[in-house]
Every structure is written in structure tokens, then in C-alpha cells.
């Protein structure tokens, strides 16, 4: 698991966002990381900071040897050059484009060389890979939650990302779709092997999609570790409630708040 070949996203940022201070340091490799915490603890702000849509005052963000942000050397790549797949809760599918046009949009962004026809063909291949080729001409607004999720992921992957950021992927779905989407995402994330950060409010999402958990509170990581450890020793009362743990929050020797894969395996 060691060595430079493993894709890695490492984030260490301090940011003041309004009345709120974010001070987080974490690293994600092959094991998907779930970011949990109460509303306003800074989960989405952290994702937006990684995306380059919020400006940290200090810190450094590195993705696979490429520096996305470095306050010291004033490096700040624009969002469109960060190669991050971002799936917000509402998925952000373009309502004026069909399913296949949504995917073709991502291809057009990354490669000027492809003709419209080639983009369409390749977009079709992506949809078929996710088993939704028959929906190519449909407007995504009229499709089910599960189908929309597949289009969004196909589109995100068509842009050849180097990491995956998911913001509450199942929150806006009904119960049935939630089960379907969770299974589909779990399979996809495992197959992709990209560094993945998942923001969620749902313990089932964490169990299905992530192997490590970082618990955020007031803009800081209160605890980080393997799912089993966090469940055993919840660092905050929020984590204790989320995982239905009977243990007293903060009691046991909690996994280190510095959040990297090496540490959490110790």
C-alpha cells in the first residue's frame, strides 16, 4: 500500500469563512474517507475548499503529486484545472441537456480534439457502461434518483478525474432509491480506486461506502480512524448518536485526530 504509485489526496488547510474557522488536515488514498459531523461543522465548506471554490488563508492541497493549492508559494489552481469529480447532493445535472449531452459536456471540457460526433459516441459508451444507454436522449430532470446518480457519475468520470468528492449522495432520495444508489456507488468506488471523500449524514452510507471515518466538529477533526474503531470509541456525542454506539463519547483512546491512512492503521 505504500509507494508513490498510490493516488493520494492530502489536504491541510486553515480558512476563515465568515464567522467560522476551518482547520483540517487529512489524507486520502485508496480507502474512501467518510466525513461526518453535525450541520455547520464544516463538511461542505471543506469540500468546496478542496474544489477551489473557497479560499483558505493557510495550507496546502496536493493531489497525486500535483499541488492544487499552496498558500506559501501562492499556487491556487482554478477549479476547472483540479481534476476533481464533484457530486453535490442535487447532482448538478444540466437541465437544458439530455443525459448523453450531459456526459458529452464533460468530454468537450477535457478534450478539444474530439469532434461532436466522437464526443457523442464516447458519451454513449459511458452511459452503456453504467447500464443506462437507453436513457441517452432523455432529460435527466424526468428520471429517477438512481438513474440520475448514474448519469452524474458517468459524467464525472468522463472528465477523467483524479479524485472523487461526494456530498450527501443519498440524502435527497427515497428509501428504495437510497438502497439502489448505495449499492451502485459502493461498487463503483471500489472499482475506481480513486481517492474518495464522502460527506454524509447517514451511518448506512458510511458502512457501505467508506472504510475510514473523520468526525468533524466546529471546523476541526475531532477524531479519525477505521470505521470499527470510531464505532467503538466515538470521539464526539454526534458520532456516538450517528453510529448508535453505547460507548461514552471521547472515553476510549481515540484514533489520532491527524487523519491519514498510515495513522489509522496503527
Amino acid at each position, binding site marked *: 500500500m505504500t509507494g508513490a504509485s498510490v493516488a493520494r489526496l492530502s489536504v491541510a488547510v486553515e480558512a476563515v469563512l465568515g464567522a467560522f474557522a476551518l482547520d483540517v488536515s487529512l489524507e486520502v488514498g485508496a480507502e474512501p474517507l467518510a466525513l461526518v459531523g453535525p450541520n455547520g461543522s464544516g463538511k461542505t465548506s471543506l469540500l*468546496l475548499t478542496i474544489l477551489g471554490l473557497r479560499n483558505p488563508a493557510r495550507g496546502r492541497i496536493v493531489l497525486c503529486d500535483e499541488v492544487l493549492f499552496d498558500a506559501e508559494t501562492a499556487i491556487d489552481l482554478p*477549479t*476547472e484545472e483540479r481534476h476533481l*469529480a464533484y457530486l*453535490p447532493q442535487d447532482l*448538478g445535472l*444540466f437541465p*437544458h441537456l439530455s443525459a448523453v449531452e450531459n456526459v458529452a459536456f464533460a468530454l468537450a471540457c*477535457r478534450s478539444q480534439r474530439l469532434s461532436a460526433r466522437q464526443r457523442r459516441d464516447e458519451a454513449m459508451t459511458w452511459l452503456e457502461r453504467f447500464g443506462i444507454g437507453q436513457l441517452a436522449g432523455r432529460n435527466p*430532470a424526468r428520471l429517477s434518483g438512481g438513474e440520475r446518480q448514474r448519469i452524474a457519475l458517468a459524467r464525472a468520470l468522463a472528465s477523467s478525474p483524479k479524485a472523487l468528492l461526494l456530498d450527501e449522495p443519498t440524502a435527497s432520495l427515497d428509501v428504495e432509491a437510497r438502497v439502489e444508489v448505495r449499492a451502485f456507488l459502493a461498487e463503483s468506488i471500489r472499482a475506481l480506486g480513486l481517492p474518495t471523500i464522502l460527506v454524509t449524514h447517514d451511518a448506512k452510507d458510511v458502512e457501505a461506502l467508506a472504510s475510514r471515518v473523520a468526525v468533524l466538529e466546529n471546523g476541526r477533526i475531532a477524531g479519525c480512524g477505521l470505521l470499527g474503531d470510531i464505532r467503538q470509541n466515538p470521539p464526539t456525542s454526534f458520532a456516538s448518536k450517528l453510529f448508535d454506539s453505547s460507548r461514552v463519547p471521547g472515553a476510549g483512546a481515540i484514533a489520532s485526530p491527524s487523519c491519514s491512512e498510515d495513522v489509522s492503521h496503527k
Partner: protein
Amino acid sequence: MKQTVSHARSRRLYDTAMVGLGGILLLFLVLPFVALVFDGGPEAIWRGLGCSLTWPALRLSLATTLVSVVLVVVGGTPLAWWLARSRWRSARWLEILLQLPVVIPPAVGGIALLLAFGRRGLFGGALERLGWTPAFSAVAVVMAQVFVSAPFYLQAAVQAFGRLDPSLLAVARSLGASPPRLLLRVALPLARPWLIGGAAMSWARALGEFGATLMFAGNMTGKTQTLPLAIYTALELDIHTAQALSLLLVSFAFALLLFLRRFNRGPEVARRLATQ
């Protein structure tokens, strides 16, 4: 029983008051249009349309307003896009300032244009040295129209861009969309119904522009006399000529309303799609 009677009476009073008050305003708003259409009969109107003022004014109005709308859209779209996305505090102040032409009397706008770009105006000297004196020309007509009508488009465009779902724009950027692609392929198509509505309102305002044009461009038949100015001039000759010209303007405005109604379904569809 007694209570029911008093209930019925107060209900009657309420109905009468509502119908009465609303009806009076309705009559007041409709009667001038009735008079405009029917007074004097069709022959008088037909004679009025034949007046020598009519066709030069109509031509000038259509040509200048077309140029004005194009200028407003071409300059207003980037400005509105920047205003809608700027987190810069001064942008909010600028937005308010840019609405000023809507609330000031058009004549004040005309004086301001004259003081800025007139021959003896603040920048008039510099323009004259470049061999260009816009005041009292067709160019001045366009400048007056742009000045008074641009805020209508700007406001619509800023609101349209501001209403775009931020996560949609974030996703587009994360997929690798460059700033021009973001504007041309995402923001413009999604905002289009509102932009068209704003451009139409802006055109209507330019077509009806009177005060600023009179002050800054003057009232010269065939040169700076647009339809509203021609109506003003015709009133001194013959009221039925003024009536005929007014009817021309009303028919344009009515056509515009019908067009907007057609396009108003656009925003409805877009909103439904966006919230799904």
C-alpha cells in the same frame, strides 16, 4: 338569525367595495385606450397615418431601437454576469447605481448626457477633437435610448444569473469548463428566457423614450425625430395625426406583450426543471 343577516350584509358591503374600487381603476385604465382606438373613426386615423411625419419617424424609431437593444445586450450580458458573480461589496452598490436611470426623470438623463457628451460637455471637447460630436444626431438618439433602457436588461440579467443554481456552476467547473464555456454553454442557455424578457422590456423602454431624446438629440424630422417625438409635434398640427402615431406605438407594445407571454412559459419550464 340576526347574526346571519349582519354577516350577509357585511359580505355584501365587502363585495360592493371590492368591485367598486377595482372597477373604477379598471375603467380609468381602459377608457383612454378605447378613445385612442375609436375617436374620430378610421378615416381620420388613416389620414393621420399619411402625415409626412409618420414614416421617417417610424423608420428612425425601428432602426435606433434595434441598434440600442443590440448594444444593451452585448454590453449588458458581460456586465450582469460579473455583477451577479462578484463577491466584491462595491458590486452591490454599483448594481443600485445602475438602476438610477429607471427612477430619475428621463429629462434629467438627457441633461446629464448633454453635460457629459454635448459639445460644451465634460467629455464633449475631447470627442470633438476626435472629430465626433454626437449631440443632436441619430447617434444621440441611440445614446439616449441605451442610457434609459439598459437598466431594464441589466436588472433582468443580474437576477437571472443570480438565480442559477450555484452547485450546477460548481459542477460545470469541476468537470473542466473554462470561464467562456461556463458562460456560453451553461449560464446563457439556462438564463435565456429571462434574458429575452429583459431585452424585450429594454426595447419597449427605448421605443417609448422621449425626454432624454428631446434634450440630447433634439426633435428634427427625419434626423432625430422618433415616434414619441413625432407624436408631440403632431399634436400641434392635428390631434388625429397624433392619435394615428400613438396607435402605431400601441400596436408595437401590444405585439411585445404577446411575445413576452409566449416566452414567459419559458421561465416556468426552466424553473420546473431546475427544482426537480
